């Protein structure tokens, strides 16, 4: 049962990846683009087909002047509701960029390359990079009429995957950087993703949360090692029940690697739906022949 839980994430991610990347080929242009989720997904045809709301979010000024008030209100309400219901489950389960990065990471492990281990110092540098992208992403669209798309690495990755030719731009350079870095560091992009951070800001309101039983924890450090975002509070927290942070992707890697019974768990509406256990730990370990 629990073994299925970690497979389940890959299954969901793969489905959404196919939907967002090849959706036009399969479903045509039927899906209305009004229901845009706050994720990084390139709209294949800017007018009609389905994409994430990244395009809207990085061209806020242009978009506001070209859209009716009703549409603006609908967009804000819809975005807010998805953030409430899913929180950063959007990042861990739905975002196609997340899937690409996870595949790259698995590919590296398959080739037996060593990963670049990020310690606290390097995460601090990533934090600065994150604020830089946030400023370019949001302020660029509002104040400077600068399109994030012209440097966005995803623009040079997902449309070509769907079979669309792209012209050479700066984003290809960033795309190569993106592939190399996420090959050596798990979920590199998520560490500096502006939309993900925007969702994370609302984590206290969101229904999903990560819980910790502080007494059961032995501080074995497995969760911190497993976390692609380098969240140390899941290891060091000893008083509070809730260990959700802005950065948490809800990828459940920490729960998979936690050997203590119920020490870490994923909660939805305060109800624990996926808990850590010894049995689950050894099943996820892939050490049995």
């Amino acid at each position, binding site marked *: 049962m629990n073994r299925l839980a970690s497979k389940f994430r890959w299954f969901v991610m793969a489905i959404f990846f196919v939907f967002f990347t090849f959706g036009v080929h399969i479903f045509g242009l039927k899906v209305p683009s009004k229901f845009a989720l706050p994720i990084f997904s390139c709209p294949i045809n800017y007018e009609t087909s389905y994409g994430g709301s990244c395009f809207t979010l990085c061209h806020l000024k242009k978009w506001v002047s070209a859209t009716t008030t009703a549409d603006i209100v609908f967009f804000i309400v819809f975005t807010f509701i998805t953030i409430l219901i899913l929180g950063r489950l959007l990042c861990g389960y739905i975002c196609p960029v997340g899937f690409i990065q996870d595949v790259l990471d698995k590919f590296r492990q398959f080739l037996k390359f*060593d*990963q670049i281990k990020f310690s606290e110092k390097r995460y601090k540098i990533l934090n600065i990079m994150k604020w830089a992208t946030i400023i370019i992403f949001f302020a660029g669209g509002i104040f400077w009429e600068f399109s994030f798309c012209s440097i966005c690495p995803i623009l040079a990755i997902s449309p070509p995957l769907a079979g669309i030719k792209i012209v050479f731009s700066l984003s290809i350079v960033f795309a190569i950087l993106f592939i190399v870095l996420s090959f050596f560091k798990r979920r590199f992009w998520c560490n500096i993703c502006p939309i993900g951070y925007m969702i994370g800001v609302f984590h206290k309101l969101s229904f999903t949360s990560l819980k910790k039983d502080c007494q059961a924890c*032995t501080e*074995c450090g497995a969760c911190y*090692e497993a976390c692609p975002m380098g969240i140390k509070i899941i290891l060091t927290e000893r008083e509070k029940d809730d260990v959700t942070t802005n950065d948490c992707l809800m990828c459940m890697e920490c729960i998979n690697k936690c050997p203590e019974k119920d020490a870490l768990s994923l909660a939805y509406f305060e109800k624990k739906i996926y808990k850590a256990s010894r049995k689950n730990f*050894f099943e996820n*370990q892939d050490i049995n022949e």
Partner: protein
Amino acid sequence: MNNKCSKGDNMIDDKLERKKEIFKSSVINNSNKMLRRIDALSGKPESIEPFIDVLKRTFVDLRDVKRPRKFKETFGVFCVMVPEEMIYAANAIPVKLCSGIFSGAQVGEDFTPRDACPLVKASIGVTSMDAIPIYKNCSKFIVPTSCDCKKKMAYDISKFKPVIPIHVPSSRYDDTFVNNFVKDLYKFKNTLEYITRNQINYNSLKESFRMIARAQIETYKLIEMQKRIPAVIKGSHVITVMNAYAYEHVNGWTDDLCILNKELEDKVKYNEFVARENSPRILFAGSPVVFPNLKIPVLIEESGGILAADETCLGTRRLYDPVAITDDSLSGLMRALAVRYLMPCTCPTFVQNKQRLFRIKQMVDDHKIDGIIYHVLRGCQVYDFEYNLVEDEMKKYDIPVLRVETDYNEEDIEQLRIRLEAFIEMIKYKEI
């Protein structure tokens, strides 16, 4: 001139030989006595015999560890911070040599200050006698720099055997400590490869991970058995099992434990218990107990208590924390090893050790503990320091704690018996 000299040498040799013989016979006597007491405890499961045989083979028959084909060398290992996986990966067997031999401690007094802990005294003493094959046949000793006594022992014992020290950081609040420990493990890996002439690579390391993980899964089953009320197995027998782990190849040990676990499961099915439902359940915490110095665990159970859990480093704790592989490459495995042997260790040598209190609280909850016996080996200061912390914390939960300070000498056994009996009786009457 020449003649005289050789005559003198012969005399010294004879004296040494006689000393060795006396030492050997006292070790055998001591071990036999303890084995008989373990044997006499009621409720002994049948499949514990292989473990008792291991102890018998090592300390009574004075034979070396059984070596499966391919495993040629043995390394002597101290403390719980040495990554055994790496030694198995180098096709060698780690034997855990923290000693509990009283006569060894007496010999060791020549080399150590009076207040050193008996475990270190005994380890140095037994090594210096060069009489017990499990010590004699080790190619090298691996000593982590954990507590002060072990640090100094690393040097003292190197007079008799070559020693590889492993630097264990005394603090771990920062990532840099783990990173440095990883670097130290790489150095250790090179040393091992140089000595054994075997490459430690991804495959061999993963294979040894599997071996240890199997042992850990079985150990965890045994711990789950200990959580049952009424008890299915006595704690002294569990400690015997864990002590046998020190002198055997992990695969053989795991197979034996598999059989023991099955027997215990059957016992649960047929309602064969070793104690009544209301027998006081005791948590044994503090300094390590090593065979043949099992006097306190055995005394507890001879006095009517049930040793429901032990928190000492050579008990079930040795195999409690599993290695979490978060990255499936050689460097990932090395890092996982470093994290596993450094982070969850509740040894009080570490500066910040609050996790030990939480661990004890969790054990009290899981095993339904009624009282704690806090064992302090005379001279084991780090454990003594933490006694107050444990007592203060347990006061909040109304769990009595008894501090027992002793060493390997058997003279105080009757005094200890009176104290332990009184403590256990107090718990009994408290419940009524």
